[in-house]
């Protein structure tokens, strides 16, 4: 309905290969960015920013990471939370060791550690496939989770076993630690997520993304194109874990602000991120955002929304009902649209483009 594509033609391949070839989409994206950068900090209160927006951003990044692995390369992983944990602990160790280095740099570098661990646990992916591989990634999940508790070096031997997030400044403004304002943390998250989404989008739209999808769709034929399966899969593991690691570091440093990290990065978080990817849409970056918004905001909506609607509920009951609803919604979504919210979005967009025609 709002699409006026007449007159939008491509006279170069660069324009034809753009990620957003339609002008109206670019305008929409610009509006979303404006809202994210200006609207939300202006309108949102601290609660909204810390409990809704920052979690959403962190989960989006983690979901993008998993989507690269599962959606684009077709390798199921149940260990995302552990790779996030590696990022968090690496960042903690790094900022302790190099207190002078910019925290943003450290967050990104900690992703590299996560990537290395990811490659290590991705090695079996050459020989094992499908669910077997999924179970293999559980080894990473449980081993790393164990290590977070049992290897005191990781948490600097402190008595609580928790990560203590120190205060770090960026341009003189506290970004991490107790005195960092929610807005600051939100902006840092937002910028990181935008930049990393851009990189991810570049990767999946180019040669590397095509090799990943080729491996996913038909590995035999991919090999024939000269794609080395092990390299492609390990690269997917590395990039995926890098994203997870950065998300993990962001989670502890910019969202939780410290705490019993080992409990946070549990298997249920891994599952939740897998949900985000599936509900959002496999093989779709925008779907990762949808999925993260859906899964991350559902419990918050239940917790605060139902009482607001006049449904009285104790905290525990609310939690149980939330579980039930999440379960039911997952099934409903899979039935209604197995290809996820991204596909629904695409269909909706297509409808708008062909409006008023049905096709």
């Amino acid at each position: 309905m709002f699409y006026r594509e007449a007159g939008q033609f491509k006279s170069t391949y660069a324009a034809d290969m753009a990620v957003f070839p339609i002008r109206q989409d670019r305008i929409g994206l610009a509006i979303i960015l404006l809202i994210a950068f200006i609207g939300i900090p202006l309108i949102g209160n601290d609660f909204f920013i810390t409990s809704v927006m920052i979690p959403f951003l962190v989960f989006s990044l983690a979901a993008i990471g998993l989507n690269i692995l599962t959606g684009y390369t077709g390798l199921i992983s149940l260990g995302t939370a552990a790779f996030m944990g590696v990022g968090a602990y690496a960042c903690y160790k790094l900022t302790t060791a190099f207190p002078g280095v910019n925290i943003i740099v450290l967050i990104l570098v900690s992703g590299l550690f996560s990537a290395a661990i990811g490659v290590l646990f991705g090695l079996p992916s050459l020989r094992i496939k499908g669910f077997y591989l999924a179970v293999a990634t559980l080894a990473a999940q449980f081993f790393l989770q164990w290590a977070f508790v049992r290897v005191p070096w990781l948490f600097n031997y402190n008595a609580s076993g928790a990560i203590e997030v120190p205060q770090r400044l960026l341009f003189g403004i506290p970004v991490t630690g107790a005195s960092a304002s929610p807005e600051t943390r939100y902006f840092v998250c937002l910028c990181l997520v935008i930049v990393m989404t851009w990189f991810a989008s570049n990767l999946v739209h180019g040669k590397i993304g095509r090799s990943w999808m080729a491996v996913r769709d038909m590995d035999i034929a991919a090999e024939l194109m000269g794609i080395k399966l092990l390299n492609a899969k390990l690269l997917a593991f590395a990039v995926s874990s890098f994203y997870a690691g950065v998300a993990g570091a962001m989670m502890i440093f910019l969202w939780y602000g410290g705490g019993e990290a080992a409990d946070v990065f549990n298997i249920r978080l891994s599952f939740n991120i897998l949900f985000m990817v599936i509900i959002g849409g496999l093989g779709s970056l925008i779907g990762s955002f949808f999925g993260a918004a859906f899964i991350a905001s559902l419990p918050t909506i239940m917790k605060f929304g139902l009482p607001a609607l006049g449904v009285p509920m104790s905290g525990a009951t609310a939690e149980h009902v939330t579980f039930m609803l999440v379960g039911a919604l997952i099934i409903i979504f899979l039935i209604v649209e197995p290809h996820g919210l991204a596909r629904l979005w695409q269909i909706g967009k297509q409808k708008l483009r062909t409006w008023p025609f049905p096709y």
Partner: protein
Amino acid sequence: MNAEPMNVSGSPLRDEGEVLLAVQNVSLRFGGVKAITDVSFDIRKGEVRAIIGPNGAGKTSMLNCINGFYQPQEGQISFKGQRRDRMKPHRAAAAGIARTFQNVALFKGMSTLDNIMTGRTLKMKRGFFWQALRHGPAMTEEIEHRRVVEDIIDFLQIEHIRKLPVGKLPYGLQKRVELGRALAMEPELLLLDEPMAGMNLEEKEDMCRFILDVNQQFGTTIALIEHDMGVVMDLSDRVVVLEYGRKIADGTPSEVKADQKVIDAYLGVAH
């Protein structure tokens, strides 16, 4: 000629063109099952070579040996005069061997364009860093290869499906896209496994024309498996006939057609 003469049918071989690929005494077994037994033949540069035979004759297995999916237990295969043992498919690809499959093996979730673009993977040199930026050299490279791919799309007349996901295309078009993907590799040797299986007459004629055009216009050497004898006779310069994993004839189409063993083999399976 670096392969020994292997003229089973007894007719003189055309002594022209250098040998591109030589298969020598190759045998392949799966457990106790013999798929190929002591087969030798060669493929000369620039020719269209057909491999025919009844079902289960080991034709596809032969192709799989050539591009490295299978490791034959005995015998050897040399490509461009170089003997290669323990070939890997991706190395075969790098050496210049491309392939299509009997049951279309396209990347179903990708568009026609992307499918054919994967054929260019080996020729794209920009590394991870530039890929992540998708600007500058990476984009220049991408555009450069897109041009090549567009020429192939134009050549195969599949412009209208350029941006459609291949999974939902009609079978005949999928076969065409698969040929396009193989062509994008600019192979020296193109292996086609039943390129016309399941096509209607018109599609078959189109495909025949494309195959001949590829052979003539790009000078690509082609080895193809095909059941339709008419097609084989029209297209190929030389034919090798397999039955139960053994070679029973080798020669020009007319020689092969006259061969008693071939006639028996084909009468036996009623084609």
